[in-house]
């Protein structure tokens, strides 16, 4: 199994305190999954079609702000779908690339590692993704706390937040 496949099968987690918060901006998963039109999403005041979209956004926001907030082992976590199922794949892989670039990963050395060492490293990549996502959620959450209408009144809010 190559490196990407090994990362793709990982299922990153997030702090369960963000569960409802994510749902607030995301079309309800389940029966509506993948069937909601852009119009429905707009009418309902939702910004993301799926939870992984918001998760991807959070990782990239964390990366962009260089804000890593590791999930502590004591934190109550929610599991999440595997990375390989996120879409679009180009952005998923860009995220993986960015996390590898940011982290302390010697790729050449990693090739020499034995299985247990390598698995540890790959889990580390997943943890980094979680940390950046957690950082991203923290920024979004703080913004919503600071100004409760920020995401309600401004249809460009998530776009603007990238620049703030």
């Amino acid at each position, binding site marked *: 199994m*190559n490196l990407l496949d090994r990362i793709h099968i990982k299922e990153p987690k997030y702090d369960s305190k963000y569960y409802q918060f994510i749902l607030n901006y995301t079309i309800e998963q389940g029966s509506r999954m993948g069937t909601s039109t852009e119009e429905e999403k707009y009418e309902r005041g939702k910004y993301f079609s799926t939870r992984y979209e918001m998760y991807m956004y959070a990782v990239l926001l964390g990366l962009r702000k260089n804000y890593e907030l590791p999930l502590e082992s004591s934190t109550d976590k929610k599991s999440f779908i595997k990375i390989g199922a996120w879409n679009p794949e180009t952005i998923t892989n860009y995220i993986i690339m960015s996390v590898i670039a940011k982290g302390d990963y010697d790729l050449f050395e990693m090739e020499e590692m034995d299985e247990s060492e390598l698995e540890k490293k790959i889990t580390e990549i997943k943890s980094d993704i979680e940390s950046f996502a957690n950082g991203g959620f923290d920024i979004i959450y703080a913004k919503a706390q600071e100004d409760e209408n920020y995401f309600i009144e401004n249809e460009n809010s998530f776009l603007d937040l990238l620049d703030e």
Partner: protein
Amino acid sequence: MILTKVFLKNFMCYYDENTFEFSEGINVVIGDNGYGKSKLYDAIHWVMYDQCFDTSADQFRSTKQLNDKLISDRAIFETDEGKIECSVSLTFYDSRKENTYTFERSINASKNDGDVTYQSDSAARVTERKGVLSAQIIDDEVKIERLRRKVLPENIKPYMWFQGEQIDNIIDFKESKTLTRAINVLSDISKFDEIYSITDSLVTKVENQLKKKQRSLSKDKSKSDELEEKIKEKKSLLGDYKNDLKQAKKGKIIAEERTEELLSKIDVAQEIRNLDSDRKKLERDFNKTVNELNELRESLNKRLFTRGWVLKGTSDFFKEFEKKYDRYSESKLDLKRKVQTEKKVAEKLQTRLPINVPEPIYVQKMLDKEKCLVCDREAKEGTEAYKSIESLIQDSSEERKRLESEISDRYDFSESLELLYKNGLRQEGRILNIDDDINDTLKRIDELRVTKDEIKRELEEVKNQVENFIADSSINVEDAKKIASELQASQSMNSRFSTNIGSYEGRIKSLEEEINSLNNKYDKLVVGDLPKKLVEKVDISRHLNEAAKSTRKRVFQELIDRLEKEANKHYKKMTQDNMSARGIIKLSEYDGNYTPELVDSEGNQLSQINMGNILLIKLATIMAIISARQNTRDTQLYTLISDAPMSVFGEDYTIGFCKTVSEVYRQSIIMSKDFYKNDKLRDQLLNSDEINLGEVYMIKPNLPEGERESRHKLAIEINSLN
């Protein structure tokens, strides 16, 4: 007598008690459509005639037919239990005798357990008060009838009390009977009709006597009978054709009038159609813009992913990865290079050995034989020479084995990392354009918002223009669409009637010739002389008949002239403030029918008359019918009451009409919406020295528009303006 007071209690929209007081001069009740003007007219009419005019059915309806429509819905709603009374009373004052008469009509309903029962008949009561004495109820039916005629005689009623919608039918120039009825109000023309009818039967009688005599003197009786039969047939056919001709002529007048009416509307109709088409196009553009705008706004967040906006400002990550990937690639290359070096060592070794000698088998053979086969010297085991030969094999194979095992044991991420690198490279290209892409999208959203607002403004403007055109011309969009095709139809109908008229006239002429020839043949069969006296009798009766016919025609024409002259007097007064309306009304006779025309002083017909002009002429004629009556004082004795008489001919003539009416009639009560929105016009009415003004009221419902549907709360507010 003048009408001094109208009191309404729970009548239609007039909830509870309401009073209008009127005086001499022109009294005006102002209100917009649906504010209760017509209901006031209905109330007055109901008291006197126990019926109201139903405009939707274009006819009067009795109390029985109106039933639940007469009583205020609010009065019914607000009464929990018991009787609900609805009544209207009119108070008239006879200034000569100083008597006051009150006509009252009432109808009740009752409510029991929420069920409402309406009386089917109304009750009427008339009271008389002489001077300052107390009022007495009059129960003498004859006296009541006499008083009723004193309020308004039956023959002039259509010309004194009428609604705007009725004007067109009161005087219909196409219907000779409506003009004859009007002429009969001026002077009794029926005696001339009777004289004509008597002479007509005289002619028939003596002609029959003559025919009988002619047949008795015929030399060929069967031939005479045959000719007589033929003449009878031809005459009957002639009658049919004459009738057809009359119908065709009447049809032509109608078609011509319709054509003129449509021609006067065609430009406005075209304008309305153009504006409506503009409206539709703007609506399409508006919807398209709104759709694009919504689509863009809705997809704004989706573009974070579909167009990679979420990667905005992350190109540094790729650069960092690129460095890592370079280091990785270099390390991989180093490893490859090492293997290559070992290979090269081996190759080098090979070059030091004789060509075509297999290696390392050859070297091994040297060790086995303890002899260097290259230099042919001894190399015993344990000697330096032996060790030297042995090292050649060991060095190269061990290093190669070590390197080869290192490569085969390690993971290979090159494929994954190359994929990440290539993907990063592609995304980096996109990232550079994200700002422009976002700016272009936001700019497009702004542009669409501006466009949307502009189209909305234009749309409102066009809608207003259409509404104004519709309000001014009374042509709605649907009518406007039909007008061009209707004009074509009416023009072709006009031309068909013209063709038919020519054809009937031709047939009539030839039939008359045939009848003359048959009559000649019939006369020639007579042998001997006809009784001279009988011949003279026929001759005289025919002359008498002609004289009666021409006298009737002359008297009728004289009355028409008088009507025309009087109508012109009113028309001139009504239009004096309006430069666009000029000319003299001319009632032109056309085969027994009269058509109103506007002519100049030379008698030349002026421009085509539109509907507004025709109604103005009709109104002038209606006034003339009363004012031209000789030896009467009708305009002084009776009150003109009219609901919206001016609505059709526009505000330009409103003041002229009021001046004329206040001059012609001692008292008039006019319901009008013309003064409602136009403040300038209202000021003119209230302040003009030329208008003998009575009372002026403004009426309006207590509920704003939109809530008026809820009639359970409806009442009318009456405000006096002077």
